[in-house]
């Protein structure tokens, strides 16, 4: 490479914005969050040193426990409901001859364009009882044939936002993210060797057998990445429940998530120290899931 005198500085110049932003808005705050987590803060600057008390208190804080439980329930919903749906859509759409394939892909992807804030505002009306469109449709389609699965009563009165908050969140996220994950799975399915699939089919392997023997191994690397993205995103859930439930955790904090609690502690209570401690616990959870995913994937490949 002919490095002119000018050219020698070029890479540093090109990287300067990234490095500057990283130093001021990532590295420094990261270090600062360690300091903050050992302090009780009153507003942005006044504080007292409390050592590990923030973490000690977190371990016994029933609200934090609730937030962790809710967040894990939501994560389970993403993994065990949303991802299978996304994979199913991708498998059905991954046939070259299917007419209207691109239009269908666009339809399933479209909800992704609605931001979480706007989804939350829509959901707050959709999930209303009596006036909400979801209950109206359920009433029309199912009538009183099913009652409500659990109790008896018209579907119109089904109280999503009073006693089924987590389901409302999981269903909203399913609508929004299934199409995005479908796109990832569709990309992954490009790696499936078609001739291998045909060979398996000629050898008499059924649809299920072909999926587990040929398709699944081929998409495992991308699927692992999608699972990780899903878990990381789900554990950081905030906007959707916060706005849907009127700037909080909803009735009896049924929809309180870890980041909602972090936000409330930092900006409503005004204790950036406790908020930082919550942030670190969340970071540890994320790290554990990431390592777990690596471990599982490596076990698969070996």
């Amino acid at each position, binding site marked *: 490479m002919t490095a*002119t005198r*000018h050219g020698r500085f*070029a*890479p540093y110049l*090109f*990287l300067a*914005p*990234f490095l500057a*932003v*990283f130093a001021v*808005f*990532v590295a*420094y*705050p*990261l270090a*600062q*969050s360690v300091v903050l987590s050992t302090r009780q803060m009153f507003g*942005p*600057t006044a504080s007292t040193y409390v050592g590990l008390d923030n973490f000690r208190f977190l371990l016994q804080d029933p609200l934090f426990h609730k937030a962790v439980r809710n967040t894990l329930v939501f994560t389970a919903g993403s993994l065990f409901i949303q991802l299978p749906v996304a994979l*199913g*859509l991708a498998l*059905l*759409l991954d*046939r070259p001859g*299917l007419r209207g394939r691109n239009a*269908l892909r*666009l*339809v399933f992807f*479209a*909800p992704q*364009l*609605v*931001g*979480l*804030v706007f989804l*939350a*505002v*829509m959901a*707050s*009306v959709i999930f209303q009882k009596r006036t909400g*469109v979801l209950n109206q*449709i359920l009433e*029309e389609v199912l009538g009183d044939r099913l009652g409500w699965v659990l109790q008896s009563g018209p579907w119109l009165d089904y109280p999503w936002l009073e006693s089924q908050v987590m389901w409302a969140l999981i269903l909203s996220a399913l*609508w929004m993210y299934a199409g995005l994950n479908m*796109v*990832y799975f569709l*990309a*992954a399915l490009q790696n499936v060797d078609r001739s291998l699939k045909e060979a398996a089919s000629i050898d008499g392997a059924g649809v299920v057998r072909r999926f587990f023997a040929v398709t699944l191994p081929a998409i495992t690397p*991308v699927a692992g990445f999608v699972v990780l993205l899903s878990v*990381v995103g789900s554990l950081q859930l*905030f906007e959707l429940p916060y*706005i849907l439930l*009127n*700037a909080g955790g909803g009735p009896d904090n049924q929809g309180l998530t870890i980041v909602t609690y*972090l936000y409330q502690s*930092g*900006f409503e209570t005004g204790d*950036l120290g406790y908020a930082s401690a919550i*942030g670190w616990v*969340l970071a540890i959870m994320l790290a554990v899931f990431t390592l777990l995913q690596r471990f599982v994937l490596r076990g698969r490949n070996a």
Partner: protein
Amino acid sequence: MPTAKHKSILSAAGAYVVLLPLAVITLVPFVWLVTSAFKSREQFFGSMFLPRGDGLLGVDWAALTLENFTRLFSEIAIGRALLNSLFLSSVTALLATLCCAAGGYALAMYKFKGRGICLAIVLAALIVPAPLLIAPGYQVLFKLGLLDTYTGLILPGIAPAFGVFLFRQSVLQSVPPELLEAGRLDGCGELGIFARVVLPLLRPMTGAFLMITFLAMWNNFIGPQIVLQSPDKQPLSVAIAQLKGVYYEDYGLMMAGTLVSVAPVAVLFLLLQRDFVSGLTLGAVK
């Protein structure tokens, strides 16, 4: 083989039986969003979608109203929030795309002292969870005097690590080093090569990344909620969330506000769709 053909037609029919109802379910909220935005308060409860009547297709078209939209712009001044969103999102998207492309290009194509460290920093920054930075980040902005300024909201987002990383991959894949040498021999400066040779070659990626960063800022709620305090500086995300708090019983108005917020993004997506999808799959597979 006629049997194989029959079989594939059957399985295609099977695919439609599952896909079409799901497509309808996916579209219902959109249809409902659009129709609710044009209904007055009274009509909102009268019908699920469009009010029934004697007009074309059995719909009472005359009952629809623009009242929600006129109220949005006169009573609630949503126009200002719309402009704020447009400004914040386009500036962030442009700066982030430039900074990330430049950073990724440097990491991919130059040999320089500290390259290994820079790459390690990018990879490390990738795994820092955003919520961890909320509280200390707020403190940093407070100390820098950037609270309640657009700069405070835009600056932290102009060079995300995942963008630098994506562009590094993209440069490695689609920029041949010989072309850069040719540019240098022709007397092109380093900046000129980046702007005239490299950037055009990164086309699908830049389109996708512009779209991603624009969307991220457009839909960003926690950022403006924490950084901005003056009501007239708020973008749509915060304005609509506040609308929900105040007018929570005025469903038509809320849906009109949501529609105004979602429509520009949908238009942008349709314009950049091809770049977006190819860029997205590029990033996902490689």
